[in-house]
Structures are given as C-alpha cells and as structure tokens.
C-alpha cells in the first residue's frame, strides 16, 4: 500500500529545547525508524528561551512523512513541528564554501562564473580562491558542477535552512 505511493521531498522545521542530546534524539529517531535525512541543520535561535531550530529535509511517501512529523512531535523536548513544504510558500537557502585551485585561464574562468552566481571571494592566494555562495540547493549544485573542471578541490556546505514567507512566525 505505502510502497506504491510516490516519494516526496519535504522540508520540516522543528523548534526544540536547546539541551544536551536533542540532536542525537532527532538523528536516532530517523536512523532507528529507517527514515531518510537529505540535509539537517541545527543552531540555537533564541538564547534567552534556550530554543534551537532544526531544519531537516527528508523524503518518503505521504504516510511516512506524516509518521516523521508525528514521531518528531512526540519527542518530549520538541515545541513545534512545521512542514514547510505543505504549509505554504517558503524560502530555502544553503551556504557553501568552495575551494578552487589552479592558475591561468581556468582561474580566470572560475572568477567569471563566480561573478555570475554572485559568489564572494573570501580567501585568495596566487593559486587558489575560496568562494562563498548562498542560494537554493539546485543553484549551489550547479555552481559546484561548473567549478569541477576548473580546479575544484574542496566543498563545505551548511545544508538547508528554511523559513516561511509572510508575517507569521513558526
């Protein structure tokens, strides 16, 4: 029944108490029950209230996605679970740092493409650049693919953070 349903990708925001072990609780829930994690980010968002926000991108059939949300909701330190994918328009962003090493024409070309992507050069040597780019997952994938033949040697990316459009908070 569930197997024949199509797999969907969802971005879920979770507001949690910032306490030791909370990330292990969430990650353990996903691994223990066989759910996918495509991306996961976490950081404190309200120091006074000791609240952290976890953004998790996951995929599964609608029944599995519903389960994931219900399972997250029943973790004791979870305040709120919000499925941004179904709850209306939202913005998703990632940040990457990309190191490209090389000289000559390739080096010039990498700078040209970086400009198109509105990337910033945050470190530079005679034979390398580190670019900082923000954007959607697809845009960053495209940037990385373009840099590959131009001397890409290292990538570090944050994973997706997301927020709903409009005036309402989570």
């Amino acid at each position, binding site marked *: *029944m569930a197997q024949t349903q199509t797999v969907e990708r969802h971005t879920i925001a979770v507001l949690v108490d910032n306490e030791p*072990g909370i990330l*292990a609780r969430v990650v*353990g829930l996903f691994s223990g029950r066989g759910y996918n994690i495509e991306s996961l980010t976490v950081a404190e968002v309200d120091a006074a209230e000791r609240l952290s926000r976890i953004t998790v991108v996951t995929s599964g059939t609608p029944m599995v996605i519903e*389960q994931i949300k*219900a399972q997250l909701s*029943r973790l*004791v*330190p979870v*305040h709120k679970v919000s499925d941004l994918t179904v709850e209306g328009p939202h913005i998703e962003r990632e940040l990457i740092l990309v190191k490209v090493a090389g000289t000559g024409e390739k080096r010039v070309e990498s700078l040209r493409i970086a400009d198109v992507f509105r990337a910033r050069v945050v470190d530079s040597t005679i034979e390398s650049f580190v670019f900082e780019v923000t954007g959607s997952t697809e845009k960053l994938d495209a940037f990385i693919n373009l840099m590959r033949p131009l001397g890409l040697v290292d990538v570090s990316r944050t994973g997706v953070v997301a927020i709903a459009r409009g005036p309402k908070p989570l």
Partner: protein
Amino acid sequence: MADQPMTGSEVILKALVDQGVEVIFGYPGGAVLPLYDAMFKQNSLRHILVRQEGGAVHAAEGYARSTGKVGVVLVTSGPGATNAVTGLTDALMDSIPIVCLTGQVPTHLIGNDAFQEADTTGITRPCTKHNYLVKDPKDLARVMHEAFYVARSGRPGPVVIDLPKDILVGAASYVPPERVKHRSYKPQVKGDLRKIEAAVEMMMKAKRPVFYCGGGVVNSGPAASKLLGQLVHLTGFPCTLTLMGLGAFPASDPQFLGMLGMHGTYEANLAMHGADLLINVGARFDDRVTGRLNAFSPNSKKIHIDIDQSSINKNVAVDLPIVGDAGHVLEDLIKVWKAKQPKIDQKAHKAWWTQIDQWRARDCLKYKPGKDVIKPQYALQRLYEAIKDRDHYITTEVGQHQMWAAQYLKFEEPNRWMTSGGLGTMGYGLPAAMGVQIAHPKALVIDVAGEASILMNIQEMSTIAQYRLPVKVFILNNEYMGMVRQWQELLHGGRYSESYMESLPDFVKLAEAFGAVGLRASKPDELDGVIKEMLATDKAVIADILVDKTENCFPMIPSGAAHNDMLLGPGDESGKPADKSVSEEGMVLV
C-alpha cells in the same frame, strides 16, 4: 521557601515521597551508595532488593500495571543500567509508566571510561520515552518531577534519570512538584468533538461494526473500561480485545468475541475481516493483530482513537483518527450517542450477530482432551475454575503458555493481566508477579510460565523468599521452547534446531532450594489436587505441570496470512491457503 540545604540524595528521596511513591525496586552499587545511605535513614520509602536489575524493571512494570501508579527502579551505573535496558524497552513497547534512576560516575569522570561507566543516556535514548542526565544540582528536583509527569501522562512509558555520584552527595535545593511546569510536553487528552460526532454518525450507519480495543483503555484507568462497557452495551456492537487490552471488557459478556490476532479466536478475527466499521480504541494495529496488511479488514471504514498521534496511520490508513485519551473520548462518544438517540439498522445487526454466532459455533478453542497426558489448555481451564471466585492477578512469561493463558483464562476487570506484549520478553512473568504481589499483598498472584522462560529470571525466587511473597508459579512444562518448536514444525520442516530444553532442573527441588513449596502433576487426575494444594499454600509455590510435549497453540494465523486464513487445529484444512504452505514473504515475518 523550601530551600533548606539538602544533599542531592535527600532531594531525590523527598521528590519520590512527594510524587506518592511507596516502593522502589532496586539493586545497590558504587555509584548509588550515597542514595542508599540516605534511604537507610528514612522510613517513608520501601526498597525491594531484587537479584538482577532486569528483575527490578519487570517488577516495577508489574507493580505499575496492576495499580496504575508509576513504577520506580533504582540501579547503579554501568552494568546496573545496561541490565535494565530490556525492561525499559519492554515498558516502552507496552506503554508502562516507569521512572528508572541510574547511578553514574562523577561528572568529572564522564567520558573517561571510568570504572562501571556506561553512556546510559546514549544507550537508553531509543528505549525510553525520555531520559535525563543531571549535571547541575539545581536541575535535580525539577527533573525528578518532570520525569514522573512524562512517565505517567499521555501515552505512558519509561523515563531514565542518570545521576552522577557527585550530584548525589553535593548540595541541592528542593522544589515541590506544584512549582514544576513542563516547557514543551503537553499531551492532548480531550478528543476533537466534531470528529467524535462524525464517529457517531459512522457508527449509526454501520451494518457490521466491531469494537477493537487495546491497552490504551487499560492505561486510561479503570473508569475507561467502565465507559467502554457502557458504550458497547449502548450500541449492541460486538467487541474484541488485543492481548494488552484483556480485562478492559468483561470476558463473560455475551458481546465479547475473545482476543483477536495471530492466536485470537475465529469469531474475533473473522468479525474483523468481515466488518464494515472498525472502532479502534487504544490499540495500535500491531502486526500480530493485523496479519497480512493488504488483506486486513478490507471492507471496513476505520475509526482510530489513540492518545499517540504517531500510532495513527502508521501501519493501517484510517478514515477517522481521533487523538485523545481513551476515557475522555469514550465519555464524549457516549454523550453524543445518547443525545442522537440513533436508529440503527436492526435487521442488518441481527444478521451480523447471526453470522458471528455461526463463527462462534466452530468452537475454535476446543482441543482433544488427553487421557494419560495433561493438555496445557486443560491445565489452564482447571486453574481458572479454581481461582475464578478469588481476587486474582495473572502474569505470564512469553510463548505458547502465554497465548493459552490469554485464551483460556478469563479476565473480567482491567489491571489483572500482566504480560509482555510488544517486546515479548521471556523472563518477564516472575519478577512482574513479584511486583504485583508487593502492591497487593493479600491477593492471589499467579505467574503462568513455561519451563524455558522461567529460567530466564529464576534468580528472583530469592527475592520472593526474602520478602515472603506468596507468588504462585504455574509452569506448563513441555520440555521445549514451545512456540519456537511450533514454528519449526509449521515453517521449518520439523527441524527442531536448539528448541529442546535439555538438562532441565528438578523444579520441585528448585522450589525447595529457594524456600518455596514444589509440586508436580504429570497425569490429568493429579492436576486438581496440585492446583488445590498450590492455592491452599500461603507461601511461594512452583507447580511443575508436565503437559503434552507436542501440543500446538491454535487457532493460528500463519505469518503473512490474512484473518480469514486461520488454522483452527492440527488437522484443519478449511482455513489453510490454497497452496497449504507459508509464502516466502510470510517466512520472513516473525
């Protein structure tokens, strides 16, 4: 106000007393010595010294399930905590409220592979409802009160509090329970009234309805079982119960169909299969209940009432979910039903009951009586005849005897039946019986056991001796791991790989070694005498009942089969699937 200087240990004990705790099941060790020292100086808490930490958790489960209170466990760090893991998992699966205090090495040693150190919160995270590591004494009182709130509210479950030794000896201040409010955990208790009205609409229109109820009704408290009885009688619908729900509706009631599921009754399973409306109250569509999912109750609309949102649409997609406590939702259902004064389709209902009576007439629990050998079913029937008029509690181990006990003993009230359902923990019954007996010193407490399971926690006979608990152990001894043997017979060509219990102890002598009374019956005509003597003895008894070694537990839905593919007995072909063998897919299922 209440902030007088106290040690961490004193704060813990005061919190336990303020939470209404009377009994702790535990085992001391290095990391918890300060707590045991503080306990030595007080009289409000009774400590029961078990013989292995696993026994402590099962005892607390028995205590909790027979009283509705939170069971409390105290163990030391490292092996104390790891031994408790099976019991914690058991309590999680069966939704039993437990608070388990574990010792831990001092905070400055955590992470150093210190003596008897284990990452207890790491190990117990997936097998508890929640857990805490207390690293700051100012959190201690709050964590204690929160743990009790989390353990008993919503869907109950086990909570671990890991207590480093320096927290136990250092100064800490006390906060009374009233001043502790949980920041995020607020379970939904009342059901959505519009959905409850929609449920009543569906019930009014149903032609072949069935109530399918489980442990959630028992966990909601005895009032919920009363309300369930009212609603079932008001509607006139049939009612079946899961293994965990037995007692939530009286077994003697004519509207009761018996237990459903893999070893449930023919009438219960066929009613599930043929129904046009399932009203699930506090059950979770467990795989032992549903059988093959794509053939499960194929033509019914499904209402699912559960306090745990994550139980809904997990295994079976339902038409109307109602999140809430069974008791509250049942109360509202009754109100709405009465207000609507529904006219149900009498003709259809009569036809439904006629159909059910035909299924009942198959008498699926009948078995061939033994002339020279005691049939296990017969042993339980005779036991029930002897105890039915006495105030009694039953625990079981896990296996054939457990299923037979569920089939042949009748439960009229909730909280009388303690069994390991979800996890299927062999060795549960003896310590659980101990916990029940502690809670109900005057009552008759019987552990229906198998000779294999009982050996898994036999050391607790020593605890039973220490506290002079008159627990009765009724062993259905077939010299096999019966359920393993049954599956090997049905699924693995009769290759009895490692399921024969060689070198069993002499249970009569074993009983005597533990200061209990040992009895044995090997012939049908000895059975009643042994049961009588067991019940007349006011101390612990092990009754070793030598039963038919080859008897199998029927009815049975083979793995991967549907409810209407039941096997009714050894010679039964009627319910077998056409190819008469279990599918590959079914073999993979356990």
